[in-house]
């Protein structure tokens, strides 16, 4: 499939794609690190939002600013900036989430010269009566600040247009998840991971077009591909920048059919109302979506969601993919595990950093886990 090959090329060298895109379209590039970044406003402003990921290289420059007890995602993103590999950025935004990202925002302001810098101060508790108004005001302020930095006014019409584009993408990604859940044979986990990652890197219109083509093709192919007997799993955690995980699980006789990742379903979950005021619609999505553990919404919301995901997807187990030293996720893990146990859903925990543990070890753990399901 031509579109899939293109997407895989882009994902294997995102910086080259972003530079080329910037040159061709003249768009400003705005980086972000988390799915609480109101991307819709950046895209509405005519800029190109791109998600920043950790360095695949050894982290050494960032170590002068961040201690080793900070997660490899935060340290890795700083490494990329300090090594001057993000010189295509015109701006960068930091939504208020976990402590490490807040500190990264400050360290960035002190040390990275060039791109403009904006914080988006979101509420921490998302289930209080004032959360919607607070969030709406924060988004309004961000819209005005961003407009100022980019030298243009961001109108409601521009926002409404952007919301429609994001809704289309999110609807299609939802479709992709459903197709793969129904018949995991239609697209390999590594290819699926590439499509999801491309959504956070590519120009939204280009991505939307490629994605529509891919889904049409998969629906056509899907009818011919037989469903193999494999154990379905749900992946839970923050970010997954290891496409190899999908391969290792598939080699061990399993398949990831759903996830609750920040770089996965949580990023796509929920549509925005197209007939109400745009900033409210964006805010409401954040209030309806399942939270990141750095935010608060109902004591057991994430656990209930995870159990529901497992049941709805027909999965037989959960793999927790947690970044070492990510404390919000680590704090939640014991209660999530407890809720899964109550529902008789087996789970295994994998602690990862930039590099995966040795493949032999991983293979042994996944093979055993899948065999005992």
């Amino acid at each position: 499939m031509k579109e899939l090959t293109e997407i895989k090329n882009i994902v294997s060298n995102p910086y080259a794609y972003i530079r080329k895109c910037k040159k061709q379209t003249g768009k400003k590039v705005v980086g972000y690190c988390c799915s609480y970044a109101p991307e819709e406003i950046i895209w509405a402003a005519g800029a190109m939002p791109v998600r920043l990921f950790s360095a695949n290289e050894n982290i050494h420059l960032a170590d002068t600013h961040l201690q080793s007890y900070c997660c490899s995602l935060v340290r890795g993103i700083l490494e990329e900036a300090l090594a001057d590999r993000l010189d295509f950025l015109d701006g960068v935004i930091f939504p208020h989430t976990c402590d490490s990202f807040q500190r990264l925002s400050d360290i960035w302001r002190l040390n990275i010269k060039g791109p403009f810098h904006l914080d988006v101060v979101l509420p921490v508790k998302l289930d209080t009566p004032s959360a919607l108004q607070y969030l709406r005001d924060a988004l309004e302020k961000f819209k005005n600040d961003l407009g100022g930095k980019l030298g243009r006014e961001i109108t409601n019409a521009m926002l409404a247009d952007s919301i429609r584009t994001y809704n289309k993408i999110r609807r299609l990604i939802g479709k992709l998840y459903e197709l793969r859940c129904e018949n995991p044979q239609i697209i390999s986990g590594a290819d699926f991971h590439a499509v999801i990652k491309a959504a956070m890197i590519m120009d939204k219109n280009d991505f939307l077009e490629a994605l529509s083509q891919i889904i049409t093709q998969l629906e056509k192919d899907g009818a011919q591909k037989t469903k193999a007997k494999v154990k379905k799993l749900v992946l839970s955690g923050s970010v997954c920048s290891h496409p190899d995980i999908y391969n290792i699980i598939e080699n061990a006789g399993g398949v990831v059919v759903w996830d609750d990742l920040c770089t996965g379903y949580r990023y796509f979950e929920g549509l925005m109302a197209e007939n109400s005021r745009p900033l409210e619609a964006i805010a409401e999505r954040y209030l309806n979506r399942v939270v990141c553990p750095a935010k608060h919404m109902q004591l057991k919301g994430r656990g209930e969601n995870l159990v529901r995901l497992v049941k709805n997807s027909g999965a037989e187990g959960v793999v927790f993919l947690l970044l070492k030293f990510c404390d919000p996720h680590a704090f939640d893990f014991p209660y999530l595990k407890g809720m899964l146990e109550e529902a008789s859903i087996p789970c295994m925990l994998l602690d990862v950093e930039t590099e995966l543990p040795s493949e032999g070890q991983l293979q042994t753990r996944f093979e055993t886990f899948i065999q005992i399901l």
Partner: protein
Amino acid sequence: MRTAGIDIGSITAKAAIVEDGKILGTKVIFTGYNAEAAGTKVYEELLREKSLDKSAVEKIVSTGYGRNSVNFADKSFTEIMCHAAGAYHLDKKVRSIIDIGGQDSKAILLDEHGKVKNFVMNDKCAAGTGRFLEVMARALEVDLDEFGEISVKSEKPSKISSLCTVFAESEVISLIARGEKRKDIIAGIHESIASRVASMSARIGLIEPLMITGGVARNSGVVKALGKKLNMKIEVLPYAQVTGAIGAAFLATTL
């Protein structure tokens, strides 16, 4: 029915032959650089010792980190599945296993039918494994086989606080320089392994009867320290090191 199990570990390669529920023989050699050659060698040596021809063995299962390099095996299973199967066949009452091998340590929970219910495995680091003991034996200039016997005499085990093998080694060297007794240092090393393995095992919750398997089970000092730390009785069988290979041979009967 006669079957064989081949367990290629990081330090040793093991083979076992089983006939109608009985263990005919077992063999242990060093794995060395070439895992594939070690698998062939340990199996052929065992066949020779038992005066058996290859054709006399119906099915073969491989296990261990080198399980996929045993190209003459009919199937491979992970060492967790094989240690569970082996321990269960040796003692049907066993409900938990601690397996300490060359580079991994694992805790495994079984149900009453010998099926694996849950497991946990050390990641990345060599602390709490056989490799850790080897490093320490070198620093202390003691034969590893004597470790158990020496440590039992200690009344005041030294404190080893580093979890990292490299740091622990330098800690041991400082203890030697300070003139601490060998038996106390070795007992301290065993306690440090025991506390590492015990805290890992706590994640799945061990149930008695508990059996220890893997090469490190041969070290009575580690077993004693672990029993004390867990406050549990630990069953040690002479087959501890070859339990994985025996389990593989038993699993081969189900193919």
